[in-house]
């Protein structure tokens, strides 16, 4: 039988079989009792109690009023449970504090590199005398600092912080994560220097030389160790959704990164298929799981109500793993690669609609009817926005994989805008929200200037809005111009200029937002600011507040 036919037939039969298994499982109680597992992140009697350490006392009160008015007494957490949670939080404070601090530093540097790259595209004669500042170096420096510096370290920090909360015990083996995070950071630093000096591997997302990649593989594997150790000590009956995502993500990344960077293994066009197998999986099987794990925890936790449907999350998880892992080929549509590979990737890109809607329905149904909570909860504001952008980015990505759309958008700035919708609109927003929630617990200190949180939010939201909308329009027009054989190529360059300038403005606002965020972060680190409630909100006094003795009005 023809090879292509057999591959396509095999895939088809596998999908049909999977569909039947799914239908069978539906009729066998897939929608059975998921309540216990969905409420596993709450302490007994905690449902209905809001939690957002980033909120001021007034906001806390408003949040509680919005969610469960006048019912505080009914949601008292037992002192023992509160104490156990406090110990769980404390067990991660050092490693999470360090990891998130590094992440924030990378965020600022990455933003500056991105802004420089953006300006250089419409001011090509600006800052050209330094090799390391040339567009072809500062752009991959930006990408790698964002991906492996900011996003990965923030994701790792949030994941480690979540582990004891999800397993209701203290973190075991924090030192592995600390060493792993350090190796990882050294890797990012060395990789940045390598790219700046021209020692790049030449593959997008895989620029770091393989010697440096070892640090990320070992470091990435080590940050996963506490998860597995803590799992053995867990005090929960059910593993909550976030655990699946974190566990799978922490396994997937080191393996993928190892295969992708193995020296001397890949060649020519095969390397291109590998490149995009990795390039898309690093989003789908590394950042997305970490981002979704955080969203799945913080949305219900802040609101004090369980996730809409536990079983949908099951579908979402396995669907994401299966379909997302095969979509990479859509980056090579029209390229010199086997056509069955492209076709499979396009099909699976469309199939991604299933897990995306499972997650979307699940998360948005949880928030639905509680939008007033967004006014009061800084954490939720970022995370719900991020979750919405996840849906948007995913649907956009599926459509972009279609040949007709891809023919226009491929090779244009449209793709760049899309990439930012995913990694910034979704992932970074979720990380911002998570960090606002986590850091008060880590530092035992409130965010000193709550207004800066709002300032950060609006700067990055407006900045990103400008960035995304204008670059998407510019990219689309660029694609149309390139497809029209009567339009000279230079016309496709010239028409993008105003859009590229708009992107710099948007990117500038985003960078400004990050500077505000970082300044606030470090102000908290040094315990600046008025001690309004001080440790009253946190630390040992946590219990009296949680047990409802002095509810903020």
């Amino acid at each position, binding site marked *: 039988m023809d090879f292509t036919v057999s591959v396509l037939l095999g895939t088809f039969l596998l999908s049909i079989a999977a569909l039947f298994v799914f239908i069978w499982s539906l009729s066998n109680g897939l929608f059975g009792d998921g309540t216990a*597992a969905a409420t596993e992140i709450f302490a007994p009697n905690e449902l209905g109690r809001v939690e957002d350490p980033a909120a001021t006392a007034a906001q806390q009160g408003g949040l509680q009023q919005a969610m469960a008015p006048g019912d505080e007494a009914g949601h008292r957490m037992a002192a023992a449970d509160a104490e156990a949670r406090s110990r769980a939080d404390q067990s991660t404070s050092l490693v999470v504090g360090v990891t998130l601090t590094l992440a924030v530093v990378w965020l600022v540097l990455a933003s500056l590199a991105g802004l420089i790259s953006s300006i250089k595209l419409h001011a090509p004669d600006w800052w050209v005398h330094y090799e390391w500042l040339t*567009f072809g170096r500062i752009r991959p420096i930006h990408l790698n600092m964002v991906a492996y510096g900011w996003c990965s370290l923030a994701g790792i920090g949030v994941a480690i912080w979540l582990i004891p909360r999800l397993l209701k015990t203290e973190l075991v083996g924090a030192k592995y994560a600390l060493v792993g995070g350090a190796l990882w950071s050294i890797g990012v630093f060395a990789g940045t220097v390598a790219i700046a000096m*021209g*020692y790049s591997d030449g593959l997008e997302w895989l620029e770091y030389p393989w010697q440096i990649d070892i640090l990320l593989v070992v470091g990435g594997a080590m940050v996963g160790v506490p998860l597995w150790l803590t799992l053995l000590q867990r005090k929960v009956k059910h593993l909550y959704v976030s655990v699946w995502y974190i566990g799978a993500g922490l396994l997937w990344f080191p393996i993928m990164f190892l*295969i992708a960077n193995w020296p001397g293994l890949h060649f020519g066009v095969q390397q291109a298929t590998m490149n995009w197998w990795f390039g898309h999986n690093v989003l789908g099987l590394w950042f997305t799981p970490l981002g979704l794990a955080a969203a799945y925890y913080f949305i219900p936790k802040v609101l004090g109500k369980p996730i809409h449907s536990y079983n949908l999350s099951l579908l979402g998880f396995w669907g994401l793993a299966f379909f997302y892992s095969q979509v990479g080929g859509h980056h090579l549509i029209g390229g010199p690669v086997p056509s069955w590979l492209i076709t499979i990737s396009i099909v699976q890109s469309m199939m991604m609609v299933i897990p995306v809607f499972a997650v979307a329905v699940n998360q948005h149904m949880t928030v639905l009817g509680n939008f007033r909570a967004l006014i009061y909860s800084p954490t939720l504001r970022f995370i719900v926005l991020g979750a919405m952008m996840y849906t948007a980015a995913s649907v956009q990505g599926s459509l972009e994989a279609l040949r007709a759309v891809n023919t226009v958008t491929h090779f244009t700035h449209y793709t760049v805008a899309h990439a930012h919708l995913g990694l910034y609109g979704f992932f970074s927003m979720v990380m911002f929200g998570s960090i606002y929630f986590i850091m008060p617990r880590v530092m035992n200190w409130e965010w000193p200037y709550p207004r800066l949180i709002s300032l950060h939010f609006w700067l990055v939201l407006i900045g990103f809005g400008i960035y995304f909308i204008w670059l998407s329009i510019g990219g689309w027009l660029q694609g149309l111009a390139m497809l029209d054989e009567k339009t000279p190529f230079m016309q496709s360059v010239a028409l993008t200029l105003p859009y590229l300038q708009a992107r710099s403005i948007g990117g500038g606002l985003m960078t400004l937002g990050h500077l505000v965020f970082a300044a606030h972060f470090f102000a908290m680190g040094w315990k600046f600011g008025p001690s309004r409630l001080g440790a009253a909100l946190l630390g040992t006094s946590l219990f009296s507040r949680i047990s409802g003795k002095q509810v903020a009005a």
Partner: protein
Amino acid sequence: MSTGKSFWEMDELRIVTGAMVILSGATALLVVMPYMLLKKVPPPAALKPYNNDQLVGRQSYIANGCVYCHSQQPRDIKQAPDATRGWGRASVAGDYAYDTPHLLGTMRTGPDLLNIGARQPSKDWHLGHLYQPRAYTPGSIMPPYPYLFEVRQGAAQTGETVVNLPPSFAKPGEVVIAKPEALALVAYLLSLDRTYPALAPLPAPATGASAAGKEKP
């Protein structure tokens, strides 16, 4: 708990096994199968391996990130007018037999370069264009690469390559000398020429997306 464990209950074993099986499947599909198929594709007879100079230039192409704005994969005329723009026929896997790391690219902020050596065979043009793209292509947003050149007052010494800039960009009394890295980069660019016919015999049938015109033997 009175109820037994649900069939769908997730535990460590399921997460690990499921995650690994799924990743293996995707890797088999997108990495291993292309590996096995493409390993057998022979280099076209008309395609020469890069010489040392060109390889040094290719390294410079990588170091300076040309790939972030230039693709090296003309698409089929049925999909896009790449050939009409003079970028060449749709490329096939064999065209990249000597290309490791691959430089297919994902952006066309600038034009496709797979056949730039055939399209623009002038060494002078390339050197001057690298020194100041806007001297040759008005409206270009390509960065200049002054660090690949040495600007000197007075005359060049023997053995040095002087860049011949257009009169309006040349400054009197000043010479621009190409450093070895610039010469190597241009040697690589000039070697980019896949204008030979694509219809080399392939051992495995129907493996090329763009081998649309391929005849059955």
